[in-house]
């Protein structure tokens, strides 16, 4: 639709390219071993290819080479015996805000120019917390203060690695939107005399999103006009390109399909309104966040091919969620909606498997169906289901070893590996912790920086 030479590709790829220049590793993961790992004798929950009651799984160079059967350990590969334990694909959190310097650019209602990929905080201990619950990947997002927030980023929980190495570049680029009380109230006048900011109502939220995209369309038209003139046989003297506006460029790229919408949405009516708006304007919605009333519109969501990323409970925790129900995730999943259970938190992220299991009691999902909500389904929502989300040959070696079936209330994550590198090993971690506690404080070395 546009023939702009640089605008659609310029800002973010340039930034990423520049960041990619800086790949020098300054830190080493605690338990990294070079991407080779053999886990033996476990019950393999492949998610997409059924359950293998007892078998081995081999990861070489970060990639799954074999699933099932008995595998002789290749030389130099670390072997983990999972006898009596369960091996599953690394858990994926479709919606959280961990490992970031900041959450909301809340000063203005439309801020797609901000990019969470530029403010990753790899030192956030929530990464380690996530690993302890078997989580290997998370979609960490701009907050919900704005009708149109910032660009989000998908990262792996590579604790100890520099921030730029956490980014999952295969993931579909996403842009945060928000409807309802959050964008309404975050823009409300806080103190007497302080200016209230548009929007203050649900219809205002809808209108401001439309207005922003109409501006983006005008921006695209300006560039198209410029390009046509530039390429014409007699370009006018003094022809200048339009001003580059990163904010509008990201919206234009959303209209072009480069970014997909991830929309915070509580009630059914505005969810449907947003779907209609996206259709009218011509951008793609990947997923609704929280979507408390998804069960009311499950067929519409399924027909539109839009997923939802929800809590397992907390229903009715505020007025806007009053009609949220425990059965939301299960019912939507059964109606064909791609459902994920998210944490939205640096604490709940360590027990997403417990959260997913609640859909078995409330919603009647099977163990396998429930496990999908925190593995392959979030992978589909993030556009990474070709590389993660299940135990399949050729996928990245992101796995977790659990002491019991992850849908059991007694399950505990014992080991988490990303691309064959062990980033969390409960036994080793506890041993190190005890050793550290037993040791007297280390004497200060001369001039050393640890």
């Amino acid at each position, binding site marked *: 639709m546009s023939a702009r030479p640089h605008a659609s590709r310029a800002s973010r790829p340039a930034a990423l390219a520049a960041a990619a220049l*800086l790949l020098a590793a300054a830190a080493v993961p605690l338990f990294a071993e070079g991407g080779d790992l053999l886990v033996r004798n476990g019950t393999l929950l492949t998610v997409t290819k059924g359950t293998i009651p007892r078998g081995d799984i081999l990861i070489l160079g970060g990639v799954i080479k074999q699933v099932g059967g008995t595998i002789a350990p290749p030389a130099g590969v670390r072997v983990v015996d999972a006898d009596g334990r369960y091996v599953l694909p690394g858990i994926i959190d479709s919606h959280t805000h961990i490992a970031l310097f*900041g959450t909301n*650019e809340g*000063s203005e209602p439309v801020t797609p120019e901000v990019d969470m990929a*530029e403010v990753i*905080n790899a030192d956030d201990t929530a990464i380690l917390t996530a690993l302890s619950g078997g989580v290997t990947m998370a979609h960490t997002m701009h907050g919900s203060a704005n009708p149109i927030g910032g660009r989000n980023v998908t990262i792996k929980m590579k604790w100890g690695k520099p921030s730029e190495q956490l980014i999952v570049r295969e993931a579909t680029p996403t842009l945060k939107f928000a409807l309802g009380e959050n964008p309404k109230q975050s823009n409300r006048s806080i103190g007497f005399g302080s200016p209230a900011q548009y929007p203050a109502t649900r219809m205002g939220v809808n209108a401001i999103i439309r207005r922003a995209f109409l501006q983006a369309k005008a921006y695209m038209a300006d560039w198209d006009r410029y390009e046509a003139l530039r390429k014409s046989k007699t370009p006018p003297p003094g022809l200048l390109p339009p001003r580059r506006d990163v904010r509008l460029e990201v919206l234009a790229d959303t209209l072009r399909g480069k970014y997909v919408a991830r929309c915070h949405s509580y009630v059914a009516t505005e969810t449907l309104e947003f779907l209609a708006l996206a259709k009218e304007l011509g951008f793609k919605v990947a997923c609704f966040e929280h979507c408390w009333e998804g069960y009311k519109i499950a067929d519409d969501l399924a027909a539109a091919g839009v997923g939802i990323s929800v809590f397992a409970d907390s229903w009715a925790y505020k007025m806007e969620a009053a009609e949220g129900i425990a059965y939301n995730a299960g019912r939507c999943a059964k109606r064909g909606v791609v459902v994920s259970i998210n944490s939205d938190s640096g604490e709940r992220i360590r027990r997403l498997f417990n959260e997913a299991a609640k859909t078995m009691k409330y919603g009647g999902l099977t163990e396998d169906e429930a496990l999908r909500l925190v593995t392959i389904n979030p992978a589909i929502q993030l556009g990474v289901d070709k590389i993660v989300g299940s135990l399949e040959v050729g996928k990245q070696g992101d796995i977790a070893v659990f002491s019991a079936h992850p849908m059991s209330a007694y399950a505990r994550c014992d080991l988490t590996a990303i691309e064959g590198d062990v980033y969390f090993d409960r036994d080793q971690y506890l041993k190190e912790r005890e050793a550290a506690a037993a040791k007297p404080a280390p004497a200060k070395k001369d001039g050393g920086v640890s």
Partner: protein
Amino acid sequence: MTRTPFRFRSLAMPAVAVVALLAAAGPPLRADSGRVFAIRGCRVLPVLGAPIEKGTLVLRGGLIEAVGPAEKIVVPPDAEIIEGAGLTAYPGFILAHSNIFIDLPRPEGEDRRFGGPPAAAPSAAGAAAAEDRFPPGPGLMAFDMLKPKKDTLELWQKAGVVAAVVAPARGYIQGQSVFLCLNGLDPAAMVIRNPAALHLNYVNDRGKYPESLMGTVALFRQDILDASWYGAAQAQYARTPLRMRRPAYAPALEALLPYARRDRPVVIQCNNFEDVKRALAFGAEMKLNVMITGANEAWRVADVLKAHPAPLLVSLDFRAPNSSFAAAQGEAARKKAEAEVYPANAAALAKAGVPFALTSLNVPDAPTFTKAIRAAIKAGLPKDKALEALTLQPARFLGVGDRMGALQPGRAADVVLSKGDIFDEGSTVLKVFADGILFEYEEKGR
């Protein structure tokens, strides 16, 4: 001193009269720098070249005329002789980033906060007025805010400092700095270069855009894009003024333009190690001439700095940023890190072979700066590296490595004479030459 106080900003007279005065007065006089000095028999640490145990320095007309072993240097007959026995001569220290001589209110904790709210409302009426007069932005010139004070000048000279880049200190786009020689109190006569650089800081606003770090990052990008676009429009208009509508004048973009064009450096304050990578990536993306400043966690990205060299101005501010593990672990851990880990930043960089200058950014005063240098040395920074990082390295980064930062003939006569090793406890700076102008100090306890 018989310096002509020449500062047209302070002259309350009609413009015509100012012009007339300018024409009559010509360039400001350098009254004191015509003197000739010979410092005889001192230890000389020239930075470029080997130390001279018993050397003589001849200074003439604000420049170094000769340096060498005492027996080889002929003392000119017109020289005022200074007996240097027991003294050591160093090149004057250069602060590549400071806020000295700028008297603006700095809200409590502003620089410690990362991504947090800066600028609490100033309480004093005078402070409010100062904020109004000098709002941060690309057009704010540190030169316009300068209020050199004698006691401040003396304290910094006694710390060995003879030149300093002085930058505005507030906001995310702070303004433009000026590079000064500490040769007196007349701002114009002190200027080595004005403007010196544009100063950015990875902090955010409160209650208005940008309210977050990612907002600040986005704003920097958009502003540089805008300045480039503005420059292209102005250039096009200059080429084809006919049949082209005159582009609108935009003062802020006009101020940014030389920086967007790489004509002058953009100094980005990095409050933690992630900021360093952020600034390097931003500079590469926007093709800017970027300098890293602050960077008291630079050791954590020493590899990156080695692979992607940029002028690195390391502050001797040892306070742990809020984003650090140490700060997250509570006050005791923070204090421990500030006493043991952060002072070793420079030592680790030197060990890794990353060139850097040491600066006083966020160091409250000159005596604290002196103590901080000693702490960095105690933490493992070799003295010769410390000296280089205070003299020749900043001179190079500031583009004056050929005329300042070392004791060599032809360079500026910026010389510090210290009794005792300047980095040792109990040493005293007794004489300072700035542009060849002599400042003398009493020995401690006298």
